[in-house]
């Protein structure tokens, strides 16, 4: 189930977390401490979880051609957090398993051997964190969905020489060592302790050493590549991560039969994620740029093909359409849309800050017109917060700011604004722009 969380980039199981780790000032001493740490860490249970995760992954690849609702894909890993199970509306999964062994943390997708001075946490900051200092993984054999049976899994008794690597993500300016050095020395100690083989490319176990100032988290990775590229095959210059798109859609709280529009869709990341996860809503994507429209249409075709291979009985249409239009002059009926969700041009790669001064107010007005008074809402992502605030102040009679979430998008500090449509009706006749 944790694997099906849609707003998570990477998954790893926490071996141990240190909230306030005191690094020695001297580099050698600090590194020696890390090496010594290896022997003292509670590896057994996290490794069990890692094994379990592996058997699930094997089942998944074997069953790629079959219905994804197979029991094997419902792991024994329990919900990753309060918000984890919220969107499994079409499955009746039992809430089994005791403790939650997995810490869900949105970390950067790439291997960061080089540290950055600034915290490099991509994703929404209000993501749930289930960090625990001790990991308890209770594998309930009775209701086991066959994850371990008949798979030729190595039992725990067998001594298998695993290959591993250590990835260190370090952020903070007071450390006396680099992430490379930490990874190297920690890795050395891991090798001695387990007698595993170090292999940078062909590894079984990826050990994570995440250091953020005085917080140290040691973990074992459960995902291979960041999950943020799902659903999109054709990328554009500023394609939004699917995980971020998912987060934004959740913020709108879509209800079945809601009409959800992205009037500046680009490659369509948001509506595509929407149609995949909220199939009982109707999603419309639009953009003025012909390239973007083409890419969005291509991404949708890819999604349709993916759906077809999954379920051969009925190739149902995806509740998603693409239109080429101008955001300032939307060809949509007044009050016909429930939700507007979009990634507004930051003014960096697309458009310009100067253009934003005119664009933002015009957008907000048009979005206000098409949105249903009273119940409508908008979730807008932008980095140009100043311009947005100014534009919003001019449309206070139509939009009320309900919530702001700070996000890091490719290193830029951006914000996601949740707006609620007031009850005031918009004019039918459009003012001339």
């Amino acid at each position, binding site marked *: 189930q944790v694997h099906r969380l849609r707003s998570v980039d990477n998954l790893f199981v926490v071996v141990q977390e240190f909230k306030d780790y005191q690094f020695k000032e001297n580099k050698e001493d600090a590194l020696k401490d890390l090496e010594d740490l290896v022997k003292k860490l509670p590896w057994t249970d996290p490794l069990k979880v890692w094994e379990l995760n592996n058997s699930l992954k094997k089942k998944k690849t074997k069953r790629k051609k079959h219905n994804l609702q197979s029991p094997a894909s419902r792991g024994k890993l329990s919900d990753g957090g309060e918000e984890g199970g919220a969107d499994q509306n079409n499955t009746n999964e039992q809430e089994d398993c005791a403790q939650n062994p997995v810490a869900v943390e949105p970390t950067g997708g790439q291997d960061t051997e080089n540290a950055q001075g600034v915290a490099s946490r991509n994703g929404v900051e209000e993501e749930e964190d289930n960090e625990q200092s001790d990991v308890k993984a209770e594998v309930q054999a009775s209701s086991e969905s066959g994850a371990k049976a008949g798979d030729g899994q190595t039992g725990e008794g067998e001594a298998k020489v695993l290959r591993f690597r250590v990835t260190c993500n370090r952020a903070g300016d007071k450390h006396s060592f680099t992430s490379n050095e930490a990874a190297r020395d920690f890795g050395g100690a891991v090798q001695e302790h387990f007698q595993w083989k170090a292999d940078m490319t062909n590894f079984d176990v990826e050990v994570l050493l995440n250091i953020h100032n005085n917080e140290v988290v040691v973990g074992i990775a459960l995902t291979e590549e960041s999950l943020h590229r799902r659903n999109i095959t054709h990328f554009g210059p500023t394609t939004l991560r699917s995980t971020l798109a998912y987060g934004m859609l959740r913020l709108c709280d879509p209800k079945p039969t809601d*009409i959800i529009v992205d009037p500046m869709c680009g490659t369509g990341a948001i509506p595509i994620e929407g149609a995949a996860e909220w199939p009982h809503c109707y999603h*419309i994507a639009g953009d003025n740029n012909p390239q973007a429209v083409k890419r969005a249409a291509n991404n949708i075709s890819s999604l349709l093909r993916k759906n077809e291979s999954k379920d051969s009985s009925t190739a149902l249409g995806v*509740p998603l359409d693409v*239109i*080429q*239009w101008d955001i300032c002059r939307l*060809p949509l009926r007044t009050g016909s849309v429930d939700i507007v969700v979009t990634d507004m041009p930051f003014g960096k790669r697309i458009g310009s800050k100067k253009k934003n001064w005119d664009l933002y107010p015009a957008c907000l007005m048009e979005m206000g017109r098409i949105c249903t008074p009273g119940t409508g809402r908008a979730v807008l992502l932008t980095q140009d917060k100043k311009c947005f605030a100014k534009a919003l102040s001019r449309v206070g009679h139509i939009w009320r700011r309900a919530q702001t979430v700070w996000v890091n998008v490719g290193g830029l500090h951006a914000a996601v604004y949740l707006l609620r449509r007031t009850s005031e009706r918009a004019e*039918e*006749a459009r003012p001339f722009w």
Partner: protein
Amino acid sequence: MKLLTHNLLSSHVPGLRPGAGFPLRIELGHPSELPPEPSPGYEADEEFLRRLHHVLLEVEVLEGSLQCPDSGRRFPISRGVPNLLLSEDEA
């Protein structure tokens, strides 16, 4: 373009009378399989609902055009995507 989307579209050619932009006329030679008005008690008519669902969500206009009922201006639909951009002079 699906029929449900068409239900939300309205012509935005400047200078139209209020409300006159809807509905856009779909131009292609495809006859509708539905009666023009839903018969009373249609909520319970499973067969009708099935056909309605099919027509709204599973039939796509791939090539054709949408015509503004007031101004007559045509907007092309190509490869399933309607282009509703106005030209510089129109806007």
